[in-house]
């Protein structure tokens, strides 16, 4: 008889990296569909280029570095898709390609591959691109098509416009909610993001702590500082960032208390950058900054190990 000896625990969970990433991809379907509908075929090209180059970059690196090829865990595809959704539809197509390569090689693989990166790969790649090619990364256009009847005039010729954050009052709440506004491919349709959030919450991919505290603190702080809290949430990238990027397992704290600190910290930095900084939006930098303090949060919120004595008890 061939008995295999192994250390406990002996439970086999259904979850693997692959199934978790698949759930994230499913949650991104509404956002992706809405983005492609609103911004047309051009948006689909941007997303395709970013996903394919992310997967290729991971595959080629793992082959060249003689590491086990783990493209099947879908994490590179998720990174590529989130990065593509973070770009305006009218970017030149070399940008998503370079962005995905930066995300996978520089941010993820150089630090040891999946689970070892200290910043969210898509987020840091977007930050680097925003600083490097500010003109190309902020060419926002009005949607080609609109959802429902609205006062916004759709423009098939890609009329460039400022991000809705500059003057959110120009759009009514319905347009802000369904995404009839200029912005990046993924951030505009808030309704689709909320559907994705509810799906991930339902299947247990993420917990509510980070997204709710993140969005809540943005709303509260904007209200305190005298702007419309609904506009603050619905006009920029807060929802997309809070649901899909701040919740990255690798780069946020371990415990629920840590999640709440993380979310509130992100919210405060976003509002501070929007109100007092040079950039109209601060979600990218907020999440990156909180990524870097994640180890500190983990240290502050460390639970006492059962059976040990408190230091100052």
């Amino acid at each position: 008889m061939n008995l295999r000896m192994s250390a406990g625990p002996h439970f086999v969970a259904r979850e693997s990296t692959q199934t978790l990433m698949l759930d994230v991809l499913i949650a991104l379907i509404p956002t992706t569909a809405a983005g492609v509908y609103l911004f047309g075929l051009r948006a689909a090209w941007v997303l395709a280029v970013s996903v394919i180059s992310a997967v290729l970059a991971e595959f080629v690196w793992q082959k060249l570095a003689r590491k086990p090829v783990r493209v099947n865990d879908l994490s590179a595809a998720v990174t590529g898709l989130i990065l593509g959704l973070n770009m305006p539809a009218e970017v030149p197509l070399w940008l998503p390609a370079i962005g995905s390569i930066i995300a996978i090689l520089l941010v993820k693989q150089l630090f040891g591959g999946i689970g070892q990166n200290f910043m969210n790969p898509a987020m840091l790649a977007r930050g680097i691109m925003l600083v490097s090619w500010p003109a190309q990364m902020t060419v926002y256009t009005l949607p080609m098509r609109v959802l429902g009847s609205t006062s916004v005039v759709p423009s098939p010729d890609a009329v460039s416009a400022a991000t809705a954050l500059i003057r959110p009052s120009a759009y009514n709440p319905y347009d802000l909610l369904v995404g009839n506004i200029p912005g990046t491919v993924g951030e505009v349709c808030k309704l689709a993001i909320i559907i994705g959030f509810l799906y991930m919450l339902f299947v247990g991919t993420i917990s509510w702590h980070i997204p709710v505290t993140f969005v809540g603190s943005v709303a509260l702080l904007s209200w305190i500082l005298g702007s419309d809290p609904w506009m603050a949430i619905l006009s920029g990238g807060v929802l997309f960032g809070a649901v899909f990027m701040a919740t990255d397992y690798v780069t946020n704290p371990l415990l629920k208390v840590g999640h709440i600190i993380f979310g509130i910290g992100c919210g405060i930095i976003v509002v501070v950058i929007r109100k007092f900084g040079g950039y109209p939006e601060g979600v990218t930098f907020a999440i990156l900054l909180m990524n870097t303090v994640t180890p500190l949060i983990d240290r502050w919120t460390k639970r006492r190990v059962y059976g040990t004595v408190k230091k100052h008890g």
Partner: protein
Amino acid sequence: MGKKQTMRGVFINGVLNENPVFRLVLGVCPILAATTSATNGLGMGVAATFVLLGSNIVISLLRNFIPAKVRIPAYIVVISTFVTVVQMLIQAFVPSLYDALGIFIPLIVVNCIILARAEAFAGKNSVLHSAADGLGMGLGFTLALILIGMVREIIGNGSVFGLDILGPTFQPMLIAIMAPGGFILFGLILGIVNSIVSKIAKRSAGKGVKA
């Protein structure tokens, strides 16, 4: 310094085996600040080499007169004298470089490489050896700065020594000539150079075993 080194050995040691940038990782502040272009890297390298050569010679000459307890202040006085000379020379003859490097010229005074060589080498060795060490370390520093400056200038500006080489269609990656890009590219270049060096060392060690 257990065994007597040849002057040629001391010189080559500074450029290769103990390259201040890639092997000792000293003076990271000027490395990051002065490598926004190959020209700036060259300028900073030459200025630091001049100071290093001068301070190494003078400190070596005075090594038997400086009391051990106050040697650091004494070294700093010697070094800052040479830095002041360099600063005035650059300001007078290359004002554009003076504007580009700004505060980082006077800051050569606190450059770790210079004080480290004074402490570790010039205070214990003869004048000629100290001069060779200063020249070698300075050359190693300069070559490294030019290499990093070239990479950052190509990526961030599409040019080398101010000459446009990638044409007007190239969209420069601005972050390369900003501080965060400096950190990232310095780290990457450091890693690449050291992996090449260790590979060469392994190969030559293997040959030694066979022979």
